[in-house]
């Protein structure tokens, strides 16, 4: 099919085995042109052709052609819509106004086709038909519509799809989680339910920006960290357990005997030789807390730090314990501004029990502090660095633990609290001079 704009550079991204987004854009452009279902398109029919055109121009010039933001949104919300305008509107009128909408995804990203089709129909009708499944934070992203469609989309979404927008700007960003107990034997709590409940508990914080900057919750079911909460969430909720790893000694024997493939078959593409439990599990244990006694695998669970390696290698023989819960770590962020940070341990262990009052207490204590003290565009991790970890403990009402640190401080520059020093900080110089001449 012939389109509005020649795309000789983008065309070169149609070859090769990996699914080509260029082919897909052309497919959507063709679909809109042919319009087999006679849809009364609410934005320019040829907008996808103009996307191809503007991206081709970027490929040619190697510079972006989208303008800086723009304040648009739906009434009463401060987030969920991101303004976007093209800086070459005469050449590409179909994308002159091309705003993004974030749609709060179902937790765990399972869909019925019935629901997914409704999403597609709405977006085909009132937007470009191009979307992200999913954006980095987790939302379904609608890419490109005009300002006058925003309220219409929101109205249809809330009235017909029973569906709300996600977060953007200085608010709670759409929380996301791993698939948790729905299809993983390692998940130490129901990540989807906690994510869902907190999403609903904090709708006001999600839609109406009142924070110093963005704030992210992410929920990982175990220390493997499939949603990378430790790297990218202001509050990372990571499943763990506090009793013993469950061992099926018969299955251990089956691994040793080569009946079960190690690591769930993850290494099957290459001949690594026969499975060696000593070399592959026991010697690789970071705490050296495992050994064999005859054909029995022994674990000194008091020394275990629950890194998951042995469980990952022998999923049919080893399982997390039964006294499960989560750890809360805080402060992760990408490099802007003061360099990247990972989340730091705050609550080593907490049970996960509805209505999650303990979890909400930690969250709200942190928000109270950050909203009071955080500077404009200061992430939680940066506030903790600026005011100190001790301040975080004070504000969350928690005791200092050796688990909070990798190692004790390298310097003796301790900020003592005045009440910790007998007699406080004030000293009498006259009295001092009675004992020490000038």
């Amino acid at each position: 099919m012939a389109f509005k704009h020649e795309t000789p550079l983008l065309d070169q991204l149609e070859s090769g085995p990996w699914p080509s987004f260029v082919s897909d854009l052309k497919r959507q452009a063709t679909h809109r042109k042919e319009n087999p279902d006679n849809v009364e398109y609410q934005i320019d029919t040829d907008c996808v052709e103009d996307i191809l055109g503007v991206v081709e121009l970027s490929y040619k010039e190697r510079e972006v052609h989208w303008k800086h933001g723009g304040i648009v949104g739906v009434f009463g919300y401060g987030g969920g819509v991101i303004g976007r305008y093209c800086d070459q509107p005469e050449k590409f009128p179909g994308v002159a106004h091309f705003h993004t909408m974030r749609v709060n995804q179902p937790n765990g990203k399972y869909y019925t086709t019935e629901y997914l089709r409704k999403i597609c129909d709405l977006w085909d009708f009132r937007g470009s038909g191009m979307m992200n499944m999913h954006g980095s934070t987790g939302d379904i992203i609608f890419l490109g519509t005009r300002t006058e469609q925003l309220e219409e989309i929101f109205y249809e979404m809330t009235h017909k799809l029973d569906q709300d927008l996600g977060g953007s700007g200085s608010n709670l960003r759409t929380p996301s989680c791993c698939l948790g107990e729905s299809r993983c034997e390692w998940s130490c709590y129901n990540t989807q339910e906690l994510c869902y409940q907190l999403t609903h508990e904090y709708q006001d914080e999600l839609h109406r920006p009142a924070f110093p900057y963005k704030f992210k919750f992410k929920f990982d079911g175990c220390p493997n960290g499939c949603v990378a909460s430790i790297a990218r969430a202001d509050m990372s909720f990571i499943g763990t357990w506090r009793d013993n790893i469950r061992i099926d000694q018969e299955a251990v024997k089956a691994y040793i005997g080569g009946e079960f493939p190690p690591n769930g078959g993850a290494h099957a593409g290459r001949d690594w030789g026969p499975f060696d439990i000593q070399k592959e599990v026991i010697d690789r244990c970071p705490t050296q807390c495992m050994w064999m006694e005859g054909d029995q695998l022994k674990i000194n669970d008091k020394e275990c730090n629950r890194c998951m390696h042995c469980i990952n290698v022998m999923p049919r023989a080893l399982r997390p314990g039964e006294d499960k819960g989560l750890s809360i770590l805080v402060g992760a962020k990408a490099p802007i501004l003061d360099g990247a940070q990972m989340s730091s341990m705050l609550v080593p262990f907490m049970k996960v029990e509805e209505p999650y009052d303990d979890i909400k207490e930690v969250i709200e204590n942190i928000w109270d502090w950050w909203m009071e003290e955080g500077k404009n565009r200061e992430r939680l991790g940066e506030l903790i660095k600026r005011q100190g970890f001790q301040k975080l403990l004070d504000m969350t009402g928690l005791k200092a633990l050796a688990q909070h640190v990798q190692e004790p401080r390298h310097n003796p520059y301790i900020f003592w609290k005045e009440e910790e020093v007998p007699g406080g900080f004030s000293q009498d110089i006259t009295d001092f001079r009675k004992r020490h001449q000038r």
Partner: protein
Amino acid sequence: MAFVSSGYNPDKPMEDRITDIGNHHYGEFLPPVIKNNFGKWQWHEILEPGVLMHKSETGDEVYTVRVGGMRLMSVEFAREICEIADKHCDGYVRFTTRNNIEFMVDSKDKVEPLKQDLMSRKMEGGSYKFPIGGTGAGLTNIIHTQGWIHCHTPATDASGTVKVVMDELFDEFQQMKLPAQLRISMACCLNMCGAVHCSDIAILGYHRKPPMVDDEWLDNLCEIPLAIAACPTAAIKPKKKEIVSERTGEKKDVKSVEINVDKCMYCGNCYTMCPSLPLTNAEGDGIVIMAGGKVSNRISAPKFSKVVVAFIPNETPRWPTLAKTIRQIVEAYEKNAHKYERLGEWAERIGWEKFFEVTGLEFSHHLIDDFRDPAYYTWRQTTNFKFTEGMNDYAAIKAE
């Protein structure tokens, strides 16, 4: 194109307004085999690349076929996903955090027809629509950001760089012959809306020129104190300037800012606060490669990725240097790392000096950290090092 109302009345925005309803409960969307075995899964096995079997305490099994997805997706493509899910999976489908698509069936005999259907579907341009893979000790999908398709701050494209790297490493996606899983991530600027800073390999768009100052407009479009405060290195200061107006041709005094180019590290944070400080530039913009990060706590703690290639230009449309360089890193890792060793664990075991020797990447001054206090902790405070070529005596290390 006639306007069709949704029912929304712009004169009465609060009429029948529904807000704060959040997302759907995930329970509405779970396939029966998932719902029935929720929290009861006992173990799993990867039967072949891209195909997983999970076994429940109840005896039930669920078979998952994972395919590489495009994060940027049309509704027509999504409708095709629905068609496949209706045909094979009783109308259920899921997406992964890494933009893969997972089709699940409740018995083994349904796997083969599903696989054949998926692999038979090709795009008009010839690429696969639903390539199966992305499991175990192999490469899974690259998570990425928007790039030139929709963002205002990118230093490179996202969908395009991902496409060429996945084309280059397609065999690693379809196989499981690496020492451990390999996670590649892509972010098109330092904002990293896809957090790539803890990935085995990160492709990062990066600017290399300080922002331009749109003097005539700046005071109208920006809050000058906010733009100044946005700079992490204090490179921006307020400046009154006399300019010739672009609009009237007359001289006039404006309130603007001045950039200290020696202090600027081109992060673009000022541009986020002030649209009159753009910094995109064809020659300046390009890609940084980082390596050796991870988020899993397995064996060793999560790690940040380290900068291993300071700059690769935007060689549109297929970024050959980027693709070749990543292949080079992956090949060295595949050949030299121990079983279970992530890329960063391997680099740390052999030492980063050896990493550069083994991968053949060039080490340059750009790779020595000079950003604030943490930089010191990355310098070598021990006599323990390994000799590599071209550094084994004083004469050899004198700069030319």
